[in-house]
């Protein structure tokens, strides 16, 4: 079938990589210096935003120089075994077959929390004595976790390539795919990607694949975004919106209802608003949206819905003040939706059980739901004798019993 163009048209040589000429030169000189002697800094730390070509540079250079590239995901370095394996690799420059070796540890950002503290430390230790070049890659090299590690690395920053550079890359792909493309269309895609080459290529493929010709008209709709928009675009408009109106309009474009949209936003806000102040502000807006949902319920006055919308869209959009783009963080399906979407039928059963408890236990149905139901569920799951007795005592029917045993 169709291969992803990001893979299919990956630069085979550093010459094909767009942008970051300076960074690539520095890196390539450092790698080459290993031929003379082990350099003072035995690791290179490539950092910069997603999709600008950090990994691709390492891969292409290894190919150009005929070196063996051993690629590892940094988060694997939690176990002693993996660390020892890593140390073994790093202990000699040449591989069994005489080719020289580069060790690449990608996605260092993936190391999080205390559990991985050991990982960073192990990596640092190995760098001190490594006999072959180690390359580290992360979005942010200045994360406090890397303070110690940085001392042993050549730091090389990768920046977003200019729009014209991205266009150049897209043009090469279009030639290879045999697609005629308006220059304006490519420019549009490149601009929209904001220097993220990978996402530009992805967008380009989505729009152009299977076509003989791609015009500006074919792509410009991306700017208007009609009702066909996926929930992801709607979310992007909210989470990355710059104006209140823009964020609010997203609601009309979503083909899910307000509560569902709320869930999507609630699920995804934390990963896209990385600054603690922004996050607190956004969650506060969602909290206020929820307060208005409560007020609608209390008053049955649906006109309050406009404030729910204000807070959950514009409120969230305006919270973004300091956060950097989360880059390639995909939007996730709301994980708690299963519980919320519990069917009406099921809720009806719960109400009827509450009513039975109320009759027997001198308690309101709503309190029964809180103070008896959870315990009944435990009993019904653990002890069928006791459950049978209680079922008879409360006069529960089969459906109710099934509900209690299941949930």
């Amino acid at each position, binding site marked *: 079938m169709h291969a992803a163009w990001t893979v299919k048209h990956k630069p085979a040589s550093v010459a094909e990589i767009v942008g970051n000429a300076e960074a690539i030169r520095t890196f390539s000189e450092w790698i080459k210096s290993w031929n003379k002697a082990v350099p003072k800094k035995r690791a290179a730390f490539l950092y910069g935003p997603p999709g600008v070509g950090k990994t691709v540079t390492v891969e292409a250079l290894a190919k150009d120089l005929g070196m063996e590239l051993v690629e590892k995901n940094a988060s694997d370095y939690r176990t002693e075994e993996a660390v020892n394996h890593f140390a073994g690799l790093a202990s000699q420059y040449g591989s069994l077959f005489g080719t020289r070796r580069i060790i690449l540890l990608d996605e260092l950002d993936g190391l999080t929390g205390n559990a991985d503290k050991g990982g960073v430390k192990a990596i640092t230790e190995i760098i001190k004595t490594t006999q072959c070049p180690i390359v580290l890659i992360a979005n942010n090299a200045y994360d406090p976790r890397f303070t110690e590690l940085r001392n042993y690395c050549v730091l090389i920053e990768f920046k977003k390539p200019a729009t014209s550079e991205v266009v150049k890359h897209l043009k090469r792909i279009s030639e290879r795919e045999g697609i005629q493309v308006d220059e304006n269309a490519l420019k549009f895609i490149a601009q929209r990607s904001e220097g993220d080459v990978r996402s530009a290529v992805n967008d380009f493929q989505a729009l152009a694949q299977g076509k003989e010709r791609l015009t500006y008209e074919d792509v410009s709709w991306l700017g208007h975004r009609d009702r066909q928009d996926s929930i992801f675009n709607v979310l992007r408009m909210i989470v990355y919106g710059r104006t209140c109106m823009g964020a609010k309009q997203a609601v009309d474009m979503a083909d899910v209802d307000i509560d569902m949209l709320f869930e999507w936003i609630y699920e995804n806000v934390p990963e896209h608003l990385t600054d603690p102040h922004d996050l607190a502000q956004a969650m506060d807006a969602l909290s206020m949206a929820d307060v208005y949902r409560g007020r609608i319920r209390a008053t049955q006055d649906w006109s309050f819905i406009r404030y729910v919308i204000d807070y959950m869209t514009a409120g969230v959009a305006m919270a973004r003040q300091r956060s950097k783009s989360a880059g390639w963080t995909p939007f996730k399906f709301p994980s708690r939706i299963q519980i919320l979407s519990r069917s009406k039928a099921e809720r009806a059963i719960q109400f009827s059980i509450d009513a039975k408890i109320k009759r027997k236990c001198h308690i309101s149905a*709503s309190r029964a739901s809180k103070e008896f139901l959870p315990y009944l569920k435990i009993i019904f799951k653990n002890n069928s004798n006791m459950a049978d007795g209680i079922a008879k005592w409360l006069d529960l029917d089969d459906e109710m019993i099934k509900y209690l045993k299941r949930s």
Partner: protein
Amino acid sequence: MSFEMWAEKYRPKRLDEMVDQKDIVERLKSFVKARNVPHCIFAGPPGTGKTTAALCLARDLYGEGYREHLMELNASDERGIDVVRETVKTFARSRSIGEIPFKILILDEADNMTSDAQQALRRTMERYTETCRFILCANYSGKIIEPIQSRCAPFRFTFLPREEHDRYIKQIAEHENVQLLSDGVDAIFEVCGGDLRRAINTLQAAASVNRPVDAKLVYSITGRASPADVQKMLITAIKGDFLGARKQLRDMIQKYGVAGSDIIRQIHTEIFKATDIQEPWKIKLAGIVGEIDYRLVEGSDEEVQLSALLARLVEAGYEMKK
């Protein structure tokens, strides 16, 4: 083990059987003796015997046929003004047959009534005093309007003292042949805080697992996160891991069914105990907790409200490091 809800099975039937609230019980007994009962307000936290006392009073007063002279209404379920107008009136105005000329209406969770309904109730109480006496049960008497309060004899129920609680729980365990270890009793008290209904339900659910009831079982059963879990969530947030903290919160609410109000109460307590939080921040955080606590009442989703609080804690943790 018997197969009904123990909270009901062991509910005292007569005033004499009531374990605690001694002063209240004595006064209620004197009403029975005088064969006259004023309008009453039973105020106090849940699970302290308000409804039980009202039911015992009725049984002592009317004997086994007490149900004919008694009506129980739950304000949480039927709190509208219409219910007061119709149901209460219809019951209140019809004369009782028998040696006692009045009936008793127990209005449970009366503090959940709207103030309109309370105004209507006030007139009904006044007009039908001859034929009907009201016992209003409420967690907070402050939520009952002044004019009603002034027409009622107030009774303040308090949580059972520790010894009474333990004695009662142990007694039930013995009756039901449940092996209850002493750390299990401690855990039940810690989790339920003297709310006897909750304590008995907890004991029964734990007993259903068919092994000795110890602290571990109690915690896993009630699922009310033991205080350490709220503490853990708090620290996770303060250290900056919002997603981790939200995950813990979600588990507490969804897997273990812990009430949002319980979680926020514990967060409040833990903030002042936490050593990871600098002193001046504690009072700032208390203010934020208070705000969310208030929104929790108005909002519709506990997890959303509490995670907004977690986000504030993350922010505070970040600021503190500066």
